């Protein structure tokens, strides 16, 4: 494709390979949890449905519901509020103020509520910092576990975000170098030589999977590292230089609503009317509402919509929170469309794949899986090439540990979540404990068993079992049975039950058959590692 000198080629290949040696397994973890996170909302709907599906999260009566709740909230937390549907389409509202913690990092403190939009009653109320409030959450816990692992590998801010940011850059480098060193990209796109030498077969596997995945890898690496670095580093740094460290001021400037302070108390406008008004202005579905300065004359209500049909970008709608009158439509950032604003908005759909319902999510899910496959096969190729050197055999074992152990460890927290939630206990800590215990056990299998093939098959088989039993686990801890779910219209419950069962069976089938995609290469590598 691109003619490079052999020296440069080797040099770029070195960067490609060595960055993978140090960061590849962590990157694989981020990719795999990303794959799970595509369907985080659906995980929530599956694990924590309400009795009935919710046709409209913001139906008439929402206004009364929010007002009644606001009256029970300390006025200091009326500074800002957002409300949006979450697991099971429970409406989640968080009245809060902004403050800084002991280390000077910004955080929020306030009161959160979960409502059932069907009955328009309060389900749960939690108070504290944003972290406290999240810690008490149960309905969203499974999905959030995946997302937290993905976004920051469950490490505290800002370290987790910086690490995932670096991993994103590594993936970007791997995609670019992979593209550039591949001399005959198109010629080699279509053939997997599975029956020749094992090394060639392993190389083809990795190169072909990687080539097909290139556009996606580039997009995800770029947007992913932006998301991580943007909040952990970009905003604070630019705010430090341009706004003397005032991140809030920078965010307000960039969002672009004209600053106009008026602290006079004023009645709160009717939300039902504003919601009806915005629905008259656009076909896009209402997704998210923020309210600044509840109860003040300068209160602003911003309506965020889902993607308009056939578009990746769409305006937000701003209302006066005191009078309910429509002020203006604006992009997410700035008062008018701009290049910066458009780029910012594009990052979301490009990264999350949520711009066209379940089909775009399915595409991103599949592409993410392919990306994980590319990462693992790359490491397998590296360790196969160096199988004569003892030191690399540990990387080969580590690749099996993470490659096959992580899926198992990701399925495991559900087995803490469902029973503990049914018993009324907090779930986050135990979920993490179970995850770590299973991860350690998987390491024991990967290093304890002499045969890597056997280790691989055991881990895959256990994953299959864990997935296959998830519907039963859900049922046994009080979840809706299939007849009830079907009658009530809880489609996500049924769909994911089936998906987990099918996925589990596929894993079990794959584990029981001797024939694997790269059996020959695996065996040669295994023989070398076990020697």
């Amino acid at each position, binding site marked *: 494709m691109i003619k490079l000198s052999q020296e440069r080629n080797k040099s770029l290949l070195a960067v490609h390979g060595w960055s993978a040696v140090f960061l590849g397994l962590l990157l694989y973890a981020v990719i795999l949890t990303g794959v799970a996170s595509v369907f985080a909302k659906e995980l929530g709907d599956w694990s924590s449905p309400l009795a009935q599906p919710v046709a409209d999260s913001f139906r008439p009566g929402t206004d009364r519901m929010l007002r009644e709740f606001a009256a029970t909230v300390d006025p200091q937390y009326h500074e800002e509020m957002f409300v949006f549907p979450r697991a099971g389409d429970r409406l989640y509202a968080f009245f809060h103020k902004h403050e800084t913690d002991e280390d000077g990092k910004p955080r929020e403190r306030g009161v959160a509520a979960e409502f059932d939009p069907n009955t328009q009653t309060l389900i749960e109320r939690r108070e504290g910092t944003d972290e406290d409030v999240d810690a008490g959450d149960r309905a969203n816990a499974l999905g959030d576990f995946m997302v937290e692992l993905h976004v920051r590998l469950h490490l505290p801010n800002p370290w987790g975000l910086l690490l995932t940011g670096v991993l994103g850059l590594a993936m970007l480098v791997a995609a670019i170098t992979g593209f550039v060193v591949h001399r005959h990209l*198109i*010629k*080699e*796109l*279509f*053939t*997997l*030589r*599975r*029956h*020749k030498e094992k090394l060639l077969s392993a190389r083809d596997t990795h190169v*072909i*999977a990687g080539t*097909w*995945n290139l*556009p*996606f890898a580039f997009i995800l690496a770029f947007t992913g590292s932006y998301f991580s670095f943007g909040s952990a580093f970009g905003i604070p740094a630019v705010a430090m230089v341009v706004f003397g460290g005032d991140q809030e001021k920078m965010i307000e400037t960039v969002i672009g609503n004209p600053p106009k302070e008026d602290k006079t108390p004023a009645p709160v406008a009717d939300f039902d009317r504003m919601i009806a008004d915005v629905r008259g202005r656009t076909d896009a579905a209402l997704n998210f509402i923020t309210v600044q300065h509840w109860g003040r004359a300068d209160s602003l209500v911003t309506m965020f919509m889902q*993607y308009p*049909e*056939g*578009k*990746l970008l769409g305006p937000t709608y701003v209302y006066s929170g005191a009078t309910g009158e429509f002020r203006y439509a604006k992009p997410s950032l700035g008062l008018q469309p701009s290049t910066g604003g458009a780029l910012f908005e594009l990052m979301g*759909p*490009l990264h999350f*794949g949520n*711009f*066209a319902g379940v*089909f*775009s999510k399915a*595409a*991103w899910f*599949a*592409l993410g899986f*392919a990306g994980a496959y590319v990462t693992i096969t790359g490491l397998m190729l590296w360790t196969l090439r160096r199988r004569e050197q003892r030191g690399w055999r540990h990387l080969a074992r580590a690749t099996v540990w993470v490659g096959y152990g992580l899926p198992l460890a990701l399925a495991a927290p559900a087995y803490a979540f469902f029973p503990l939630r049914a018993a009324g206990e907090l779930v986050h800590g135990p979920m993490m404990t179970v995850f770590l215990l299973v991860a350690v056990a998987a390491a024991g299998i990967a290093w304890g068993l002499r045969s890597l093939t056997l280790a691989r098959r055991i881990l895959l088989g256990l994953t299959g079992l864990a997935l296959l039993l998830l519907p039963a686990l859900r049922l046994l801890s009080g979840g809706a049975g299939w007849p009830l779910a079907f009658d009530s219209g809880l489609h996500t419950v049924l769909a994911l039950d089936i998906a987990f069962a099918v996925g589990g069976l596929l894993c079990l089938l794959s584990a029981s058959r001797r*024939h694997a*995609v790269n*059996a*020959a290469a695996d065996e040669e590598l295994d023989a070398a590692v076990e020697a």
Partner: protein
Amino acid sequence: MSTYAFAAVASLISLLLLLPIALRDPKRLRSLRRPVPSPGRERQLLGWGALLPGAALVLLGQWPALLIWLGTVTTLGWLLVQLLARLGAPSPRAG
């Protein structure tokens, strides 16, 4: 046409154009010990042709459909290669 329709039609066209490229790939035929036809311009034309539906989506401003098309074609294209590798193959360890 809805986003899904655009994406589906575009993906179908691209995949149909990729199929002959994949089936008649010289490297694949060689490794299967089948006769290799002399190289012509067909592969290149088919290749560029497979990209045309994407270009059409760009010209029509159908951005969500473009992204779904890109995802569908790269995933199914890869799966096609995997499938062909298993199908037309002699038993493992032969050759």
